[in-house]
């Protein structure tokens, strides 16, 4: 079976999943449903949330709310963060100008922005998208920055020896060399955006996956909390898989590596 079967990696992957499930059931049996509801209860809760609206919305609608916030912030962060990071990595003047202010903003956790974001943009969509944006933006800038900053000098030399123009040096050497780092940033930025949307939804709002979780806490229903967490976990894993697929398409030379 080993090596020559297509199913072998899936078998290996299922090992950790079954172990986690087993642990979950054991804890449930030992500590009771008040401490940790069993998987079936949680699954039942997910199905119930699908059909029965919570605060006027079904599970799908709540998920779409969170997803919309994450995606709006993510796209904004890509459009602004990637070019800025690439320029900072490639152009020393640009780096020297932007770096000081960036270094001050960088350590501020996105969650620290929540009060001021609400003050500026209100409790509606604006402030939530802004918080996610800040989180993803910092990561995308940093990753595209290191990607272009640390391009192998040998490749730059080779490109110069064989007559590359400045434009080609950037587009055909710096950017492709930075792609692995950029894709790592896209993955981390996505996780960060989810982290932030949850935090924002926990603080205020009547829709979104974070709202389901906080509602579970208020209603004292642990199965609802865990249902919300499970939905985020699965959704996050799917989005990460989508990004990996995208990386394979855009970076065919890394197919053997990713």
């Amino acid at each position: 079976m080993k090596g020559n079967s297509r199913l072998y990696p899936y078998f290996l992957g299922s090992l950790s999943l079954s172990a986690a499930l087993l642990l979950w059931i054991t804890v449930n049996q030992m500590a009771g449903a008040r401490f940790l509801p069993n998987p079936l209860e949680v699954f039942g809760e997910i199905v119930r949330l699908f059909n029965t609206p919570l605060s006027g919305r079904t599970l799908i609608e709540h998920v779409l709310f969170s997803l919309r916030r994450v995606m709006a912030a993510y796209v904004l962060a890509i459009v602004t963060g990637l070019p800025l990071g690439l320029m900072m990595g490639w152009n020393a003047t640009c780096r020297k100008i932007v770096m000081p202010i960036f270094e001050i903003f960088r350590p501020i956790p996105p969650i620290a922005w929540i009060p001021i974001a609400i003050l500026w943009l209100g409790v509606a969509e604006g402030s939530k998208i802004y918080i996610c944006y800040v989180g993803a933006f910092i990561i995308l800038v940093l990753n595209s920055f290191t990607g272009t900053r640390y391009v192998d000098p040998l490749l730059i030399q080779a490109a110069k020896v064989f007559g590359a123009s400045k434009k080609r040096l950037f587009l055909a050497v710096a950017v492709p060399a930075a792609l692995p780092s950029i894709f790592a940033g896209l993955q981390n930025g996505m996780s960060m955006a989810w982290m932030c949307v949850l935090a924002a939804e926990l603080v205020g709002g009547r829709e979104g996956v974070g709202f389901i979780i906080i509602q579970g806490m208020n209603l004292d229903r642990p199965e609802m909390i865990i249902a919300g967490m499970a939905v985020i976990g699965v959704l996050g894993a799917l989005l990460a898989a989508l990004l990996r697929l995208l990386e394979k398409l855009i970076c065919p030379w890394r197919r053997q590596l990713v």
Partner: protein
Amino acid sequence: MTTRKEASFQDQKLFQDQKLFEKQKLFEDPWQFENPNLFEPPKPSVQRAASPAEYILFCQGLTVSFQVGDELKVLDGFTLGVKENEFLVVLGPGQCGKTVLLNCLAGLQEPQAGLVSFRGAPVKGPGMERGLVFQKYALFPWQTVEENVAWGLKSKGVGLAERRSVAAKFIELVGLSGFEKAYPQALSGGMKQRVGLARAYASGPEVLLMDEPFGALDAQTRYAMEKELLIIWEKEKRTVIFVTNNIEEAIFLGDRVVLMSKRPAKLKKEWEINIPHPRSYTDPVFLALRKEISAHYDMVL
């Protein structure tokens, strides 16, 4: 009346001349006469030259130093002339400044003093008439073999169809037909360097600069690549400047070998090598020359 001291001096000189004459016959090395004292670095070759114009690539008084804590002088007034279509090997111990010299010739490194000229015109930066083969290949991992080879052609604005056909010609020359669409990552070290060689050839240079191109290969692959390089060079003659720290490799490949001293590097000595190709590592003339060059080779830790 001659004193005893003078007499013995004359004897010694006679003996030395005799020895030098024998060596001269063997290797036809005019340096031996100009520099009887073998441990004194010879006068730069510019003095022997009628004019720099007889050289395709010429550097004079190159001085390069780096600021690494204290000032580190790598090249100190280095002068070298390269004749058209010769296979020149620059031999030198590790870290003696061979790569720095080559980078100066390629236009990647600006010397603090001295000048580099190509066909009489000063070199101000990299130019397509000088192709470079890197020790660590320096292939673009995101490009296929074909795209890597055609990189220089694209810089020149050559259209896709012609790029393909020229690339195919040189990929075939280095024996990599069938690997056009492969990415460098999938290739072995020897194959990668073949791509590096094809890339340098395809951009249409008059001078090929090779920076220890086989230094990263295992011994067997290295021997094979040395042989193959000569076959390729016979088919597509260019001026070659081949840098190495390997004495055998130098004798095996070169029409002329120049030896660099340890840092700060000066031109220590040079040999014309007239052993016909294909040369054998066990040929007595080869071995004698090897022994002689070894005696002049600076040891560095």
